[in-house]
């Protein structure tokens, strides 16, 4: 039960609006966690704080035992964090192959090499081929990122996120806007990858996804955590039911 990430009293406000209000939470390596909650609950802001996209107002974050509260994003990634984005954030002008090749080369500490041809780095190329095969984008490897369908771009998003071999990977609404077929693909991928060394923390609205995947569910509301436990517990939780006001949880 290795603890990967821990926060203490994380707080973030935008003017008068407190998006994240004193959140203390921890994530361990063995459980796939979903973070759910109504819109505006602070889920994406929390992810932004944890990954370094936003600076914290107060509180601390510890990753693998060391404090990372003020460390920039690229440094956190080097230590083992990863992320996919809710709003599409691939490299639109590069081919699918190069989209994956970039983070792979970075992970292999080869990004600064300016005198060698990209093709010469066989280890990177093999790794890219492997990842493309896993997410199922091998046939489309020469297509330009911006030209992919929405579902394929989501797959690519995931591919980029896992290319840096993160130990803790945040997925922000990985299935949004996808049709059922594409959704199944993504879920299979997430299941497959969480068998390896990646621990996923997923922000999701789709309850089917949440309940089929998660070992643990965290419910946020108005910047705070109102429930945290196994899926069966969450289903019965009175507070959660109130918050979702009659919505079907399963």
């Amino acid at each position, binding site marked *: 039960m290795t603890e990967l990430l821990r926060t203490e009293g994380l707080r973030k406000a935008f003017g008068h609006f407190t998006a994240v209000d004193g959140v203390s939470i921890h994530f361990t390596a063995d459980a796939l966690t979903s973070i759910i909650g109504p819109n505006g609950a602070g889920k994406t802001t929390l992810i932004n704080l944890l990954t370094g996209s936003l600076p914290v107002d107060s509180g601390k974050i510890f990753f693998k035992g060391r404090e990372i509260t003020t460390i920039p994003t690229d440094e956190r990634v080097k230590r083992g964090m990863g992320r996919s984005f809710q709003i599409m954030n691939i490299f639109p*002008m590069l081919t699918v192959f190069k989209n994956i090749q970039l983070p792979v080369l970075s992970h292999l500490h080869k990004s600064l090499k300016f005198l060698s041809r990209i093709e010469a780095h066989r280890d990177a190329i093999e790794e890219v081929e492997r990842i493309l095969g896993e997410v199922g984008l091998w046939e489309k490897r020469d297509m330009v990122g911006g030209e992919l369908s929405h579902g394929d771009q989501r797959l690519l998003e995931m591919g980029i996120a896992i290319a840096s071999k993160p130990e803790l990977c945040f997925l922000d609404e990985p299935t949004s806007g996808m049709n059922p077929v594409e959704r199944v693909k993504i879920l299979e991928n997430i299941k497959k990858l969480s068998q390896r060394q990646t621990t996923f923390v997923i922000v999701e609205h789709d309850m089917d996804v949440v309940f089929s995947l998660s070992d643990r569910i965290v419910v946020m509301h108005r910047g705070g955590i109102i429930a945290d436990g196994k899926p069966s517990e969450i289903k019965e939780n009175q507070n959660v039911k109130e918050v979702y006001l009659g919505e079907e949880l399963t």
Partner: protein
Amino acid sequence: MSRSMIGRNGKIPILLLVALIVFLFLLPYVAGKYVMYMTMHILVLSVFALGFNVLLGYTGLLSFGQAGFYACGAYGCAKMLLVIPSLLPGVICGVLFAGIIALILGFLCIRHTRIYFAMLTLCFGMMIYSLAWKWRTMTGGDDGLVGIPRAPLEIPGIFSINMSSLGNYYYFVLIVCLLAIMLLYRIVNSPFGLTLQGIRDSESRIAFAGISVKNYRLIAFTIAGLYAGLAGALLPPLENTVTPPVAHWTHSAEPVLATLLGGIHTFAGPIAGAFLFYVIKDIIVRFTEYWLICLGAIVVALVMGLPGGVVSIFEKRLVPWIRLRFAQGGRR
């Protein structure tokens, strides 16, 4: 979009490239001084523009101050040549001076992006211009530096090649520029080059690939400065003078125009653009002295209609057409 320009998969067949290089080497035997002179200017502008495009096309940063580094290269080389009349130290001194200034100014500039970056570069370029213009004791002020020798290319004790004939200097410029272009081609097709493109495409995404964006931008900026400096350093031995206008922002516009003409998104775009720039200027000037308005109209037309530049027409229409023709020709 494939970045590679050469080879089976690429846009320019190797044969064409080799033919072009051979032609350039034979040029002094088939053409007169004027053509050699113009070709040297095209080569120098190509190097200048290629460096500029590392910033624009590959990293997504528009700099309007590259002339400042060009001037550093020119004045640096000139000052060295006036002390040690030997070509290599002069050129090296110019390039290094430009590179150091680029590193320092780059550190300040890359903290901002987009419009503020453009304005900062414009500002620094003009600062260099104002120094070049007013600091009489260092730069000769308005009159600039004169009497710069076209020093011999020599390694003491090993060889010394006299450069006073235009043909000899032409070969020096040609070889240096070709080497610089080849080096840059290798750089942009390296992992570093790919990372730059990622920075251009999505700054937020690339942080999550573990890349510290500022460092890479600074390196790109320095490379652009070094290449601008090289372009500038090749100038003084040719013209024998260096004057302040080389640092003015309107001179910074030249690599911008060349790159726009030839195409921002391909490696060879700036080279094609440099060629077009001089050809257009040369042709237009024969008919009318008003070549700026034609150039301006072309720029407007390009931005409005054809952001890919001329090379994009080449890629999308001409090359497939050529291939088709040759394929058919083979069968007949």
